[in-house]
């Protein structure tokens, strides 16, 4: 990522959160990044507006509170209006720069916002219960089960080779299972989602990790379908549903490449 050494206008810049239709008005209690929290305002241009707040250019950015403020603002906005999240940490020199940005990409942003009208993101994340997962695997795989018998209760030093082999078999088993679970999840939820975007696993015990774009009319059915899916895997997978969220996984970086 290129960082330009721009001349600071005073010592502050504008942190951009996201792009919204021009009729969106930040509520007075909306809190931005920074310490103390910046006041969030809208810079308007044509049919668009950018949600911004002033930040000191010397100020360190990326504290946990900053990330949370950023997400809170975007998710809160997404609940009432379409929003295109702008990547965390994007700071420009001032209002003119924001207006210029909106001008340069006006139609593309407007079209993207149309797509997100009445749509929200939900992220479904599942993690295998290690014990259940492994004992399932050993039940199905006799070679691994035999190996498990040979290492169980023995010193790691004397069974290291076998342990590595066994662990690798389990690891591959988890991977296959993960692929299958992700497929099953997408299949189960496709009827209730407009789009889906797979997310990379966040741990070696990840069972599934997929973002879904859901129409507000289908939210209840979608959530019920996730609940049913989770119920079928009770004990094996600890499942979590995050959302409703701004459509983070559905705005792609290349949207701006001309």
């Amino acid at each position, binding site marked *: *990522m*290129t960082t*330009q050494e*721009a001349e600071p206008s005073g010592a502050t810049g504008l942190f951009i959160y996201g*792009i919204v239709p021009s009729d969106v008005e930040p509520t007075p209690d909306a809190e931005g990044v920074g310490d103390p929290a910046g006041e969030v305002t809208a810079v308007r241009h044509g049919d668009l507006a950018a949600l911004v707040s002033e930040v000191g*250019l010397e100020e360190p950015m990326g504290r*946990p509170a900053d*990330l*949370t403020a*950023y*997400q*809170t*603002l975007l*998710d*809160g906005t997404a*609940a*009432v209006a379409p929003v*295109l*999240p*702008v*990547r*965390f*940490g*994007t*700071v*420009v020199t001032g209002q003119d*720069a924001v207006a*210029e*940005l909106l001008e*340069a*990409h006006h139609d593309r942003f407007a079209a993207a916002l149309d797509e997100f009208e009445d749509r929200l993101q939900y992220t479904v994340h599942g993690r295998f219960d*290690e*014990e259940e997962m492994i004992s*399932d695997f*050993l039940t199905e795989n006799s070679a691994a089960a035999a190996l498990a018998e040979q*290492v*169980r209760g023995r010193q*790691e030093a004397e069974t290291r080779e076998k*342990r590595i082999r*066994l*662990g690798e078999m389990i*690891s591959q088993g988890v991977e296959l299972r993960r692929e299958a679970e992700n497929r099953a999840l997408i299949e189960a939820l496709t009827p209730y989602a407009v789009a889906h975007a797979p997310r990379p696993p*966040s*741990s070696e015990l990840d069972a599934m990790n997929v973002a879904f774009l859901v129409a507000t009319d289908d939210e209840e059915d979608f959530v019920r379908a996730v609940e*049913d899916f*989770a*119920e079928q*895997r009770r*004990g094996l997978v*600890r499942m979590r*549903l*995050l*959302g*409703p969220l*701004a459509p983070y996984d559905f*705005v792609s*970086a290349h949207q*701006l*490449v*001309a």
Partner: protein
Amino acid sequence: MTIATTSGAQGGALERSGGGGNGGTLADVVETVLDKGVVIDAQVSVAVVGIQLLEINARVVIASVETYLRFAEAVDRLSITPKNQKGLPDLVGDTAGAATKGKAISGLGKAAQEISGAVADSLGDRGPDRERERPRRRRDEER
């Protein structure tokens, strides 16, 4: 580490966190937000002061020898009970079946059926319970 799956007041199998980091952890926020969103880069004729991207290795998952050894260690912790041993529901089911099939002394058969019925009910309780009100976030609760 993974713990028991039951969470949420309803005993549902699904854990929920609202948006805006509500009820979520910092890890959730980082995972949800980082490296996402529209990128405004230098080719746009806008003065971009800075895009500070945090280097987070958390999402890079590479299987390694350490992972393998950890899995093998988990095998040590597994209970020795073979997986195919029958659990309680199966056993009770069998009992009820036997009593019904054999048309044994009716009182006893009925008792056994009642027991199995009770077990089935309690298992049913764990199933997706659609009648129950789920907590739904209200839109106007946004901060």
